[in-house]
């Protein structure tokens, strides 16, 4: 036991006297979580609030385009501009402005949209009414035979705009046009049928509405925000980032000769790595505590939503500890297998990024291709992330996170056993 304690003490002193290591382990995760959350929160706000200026080219100049312009101003996150420097926008000018990156989006309303849409609706309604009444009006028959070509509303996107933003805009424009079309249909009906009392009593409100509900495992409804989403993902990334300094620590121990000396003393390899594992486990707990404090006390002061942890603190620490163990196991395995910093550092760094990408830190697993979804289940970062989401967003209990905790601890044990076996095997070569 005293060898284990001596190893912890030694690792603690070495870490304490390594400012670079301290920055990597404690400052970088805070900077990372803070930066990513601020950026993602800003992105979220920029999509959901009326802060994005868009160009609107009105080639129609009719009733419908007025309606579209009016409706665009009602969309929270879009601010339409149709005149620049006192000159109405043209499609060419708008295209240039978007291509140069000055604006992210231009909407081009086609020529004769109001006129042609009205005509098309008239044709459709006349057809219906003719069929109902059984009467034939030669003038109207001529109108039905008339062909009206379809209209295209063009959307110019800045190439750097992300898919989520494009989809949001397309969805909003689509909804807006559908609403205007419906309104126009009602108006034509009114015109054709006369202003009967029955028509006036038409309920034009949406019959089918939707309600957004975020069910949780505890039964209560949760409103997730960018902080609740980002803290688990990036905390986990920070915990797994420990792979790098830990593997380098093991490699450094081997390179500087102290490891050879230790090998000639009656200490087991397991005890040497247990000392390192224990200290780095403490580091992961400290990292997690700092990030929680950041989310609770600092984020609100920066205009970010507060991190809500409710009564899940114990479970959250259990997930952080298990994730820390998985990260430590992998760090020690890499440090055991590799001989130089040049091997361990790039491999470790790329591996962390890969595990994060596969694990769903950047792109949610459900949005990945089917094969990647299967591969994602193999990433310890995905196990940790799912367990964190169970705690933070789904308000799960210990039963809900036990499978992930089991996988993380199993991964730790497996990597440590492989590292020890590899070390023992290496001695016989």
């Amino acid at each position, binding site marked *: 036991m005293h060898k284990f304690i001596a190893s912890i003490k030694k690792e603690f002193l070495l870490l304490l006297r390594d400012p670079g290591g301290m920055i990597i382990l404690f400052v970088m995760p805070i900077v990372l979580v803070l930066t990513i959350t601020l950026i993602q929160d800003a992105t979220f706000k920029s999509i959901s609030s009326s802060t994005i200026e868009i160009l609107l080219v009105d080639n129609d100049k009719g009733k419908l385009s007025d309606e579209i312009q009016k409706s665009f101003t009602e969309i929270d996150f879009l601010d339409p501009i149709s005149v620049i420097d006192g000159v109405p926008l043209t499609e060419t000018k708008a295209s240039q402005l978007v291509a140069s990156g000055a604006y992210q989006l231009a909407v081009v309303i086609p020529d004769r949209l109001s006129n042609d849409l009205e005509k098309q609706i008239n044709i459709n309604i006349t057809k219906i009414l003719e069929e109902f009444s059984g009467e034939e009006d030669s003038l109207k028959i001529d109108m039905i035979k008339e062909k009206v070509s379809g209209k295209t509303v063009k959307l110019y996107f800045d190439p750097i705009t992300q898919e989520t933003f494009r989809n949001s805009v397309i969805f909003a424009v689509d909804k807006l046009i559908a609403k205007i079309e419906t309104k126009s249909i009602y108006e034509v009906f009114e015109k054709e049928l006369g202003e009967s009392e029955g028509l006036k009593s038409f309920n034009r409100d949406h019959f089918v509405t939707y309600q957004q509900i975020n069910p949780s495992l505890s039964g209560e409804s949760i409103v997730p925000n960018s902080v609740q989403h980002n803290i688990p993902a990036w905390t986990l990334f920070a915990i797994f980032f420990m792979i790098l300094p830990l593997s380098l620590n093991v490699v450094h121990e081997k390179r500087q000769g102290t490891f050879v000396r230790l090998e000639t*003393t009656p200490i087991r390899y397991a005890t040497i790595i247990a000392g390192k594992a224990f200290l780095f486990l403490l580091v992961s707990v400290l990292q997690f505590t700092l990030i929680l404090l950041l989310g609770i006390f600092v984020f609100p002061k920066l205009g970010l939503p507060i991190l809500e942890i409710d009564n899940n603190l114990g479970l959250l620490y259990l997930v952080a500890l298990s994730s820390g163990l998985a990260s430590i196991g992998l760090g020690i395995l890499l440090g055991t297998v590799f001989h130089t910093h040049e091997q361990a550092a790039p491999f470790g760094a790329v591996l962390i990024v890969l595990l994060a990408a596969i694990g769903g830190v950047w792109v949610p697993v459900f949005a990945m291709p089917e094969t990647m979804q299967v591969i994602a289940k193999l990433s310890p970062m995905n196990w940790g992330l799912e367990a964190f989401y169970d705690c933070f967003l789904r308000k799960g209990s210990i039963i809900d996170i036990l499978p992930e905790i089991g996988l993380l601890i199993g991964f730790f044990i497996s990597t440590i056993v492989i590292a020890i076996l590899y070390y023992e095997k290496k001695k016989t070569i």
Partner: protein
Amino acid sequence: MDNAFIRINNVSKQYRGTDFLSLDDITLNINRGEIYGLLGPNGAGKTTLISIICGLIAPSKGEVFFSGKEIHKNNRAIKKIIGVVPQEYALYPKLTATENLLYFGSMYDIRTADLRLLITSHLEQLGLLPFAHKKIKTFSGGMKRRVNLIAGILHNPSLIFLDEPTVGVDVQSKKAITDKLIALNQDGATIIYTSHHLREAQDLCSKVGIIDSGKIIAEDTPANLISRIDKARNLEDVFIELTGRALRDYA
């Protein structure tokens, strides 16, 4: 009755991926209380042999006995009574001399209070007490060598391995180290020592083994070895005569 403290029986070592033997059927006996000099050119197999005797690597063939016990079957027990002083400074540069020694000393069953006394005593004997609480990275080469030596002998081992213990140090440090080795030997420690300083080996060693290309090519007391070679005035002459003048560069 087996009188040899260390008995090396037909030990060979071929590293994986190589097509030559680093050690080729070495048989050697080292008696208790000897200062045994293992000398040889670069790449001769000295470090491999010492690594096998210390239990760091396994031989491809053959056995090593320590007081009649096979080393690899009694690895942990034997590690308690051997001390190793590697050629590199096997110390943590960011820890002080005392912190380094406390850590390495704690690998043995020594009470912390006793360990502290031992550390103070050794540091004082080697002129390092004023620097006990200075970080190793601030030490000169000679000071590091002396701390390196103390780290290997804190637990009073009965067998000490030293790999080039005086390389790159000034005369004063060299004298302090060799005096300490003689004192340890007088206290009963058996010492196995490798060096390229043949004058130092001649003065220090009671027996010398010259190894080349993985084989022991000569073994005797320095005086006997010198007398065996015609016109040889010292161990260096013997060494050159036996191993040749060809440069031993290897990669």
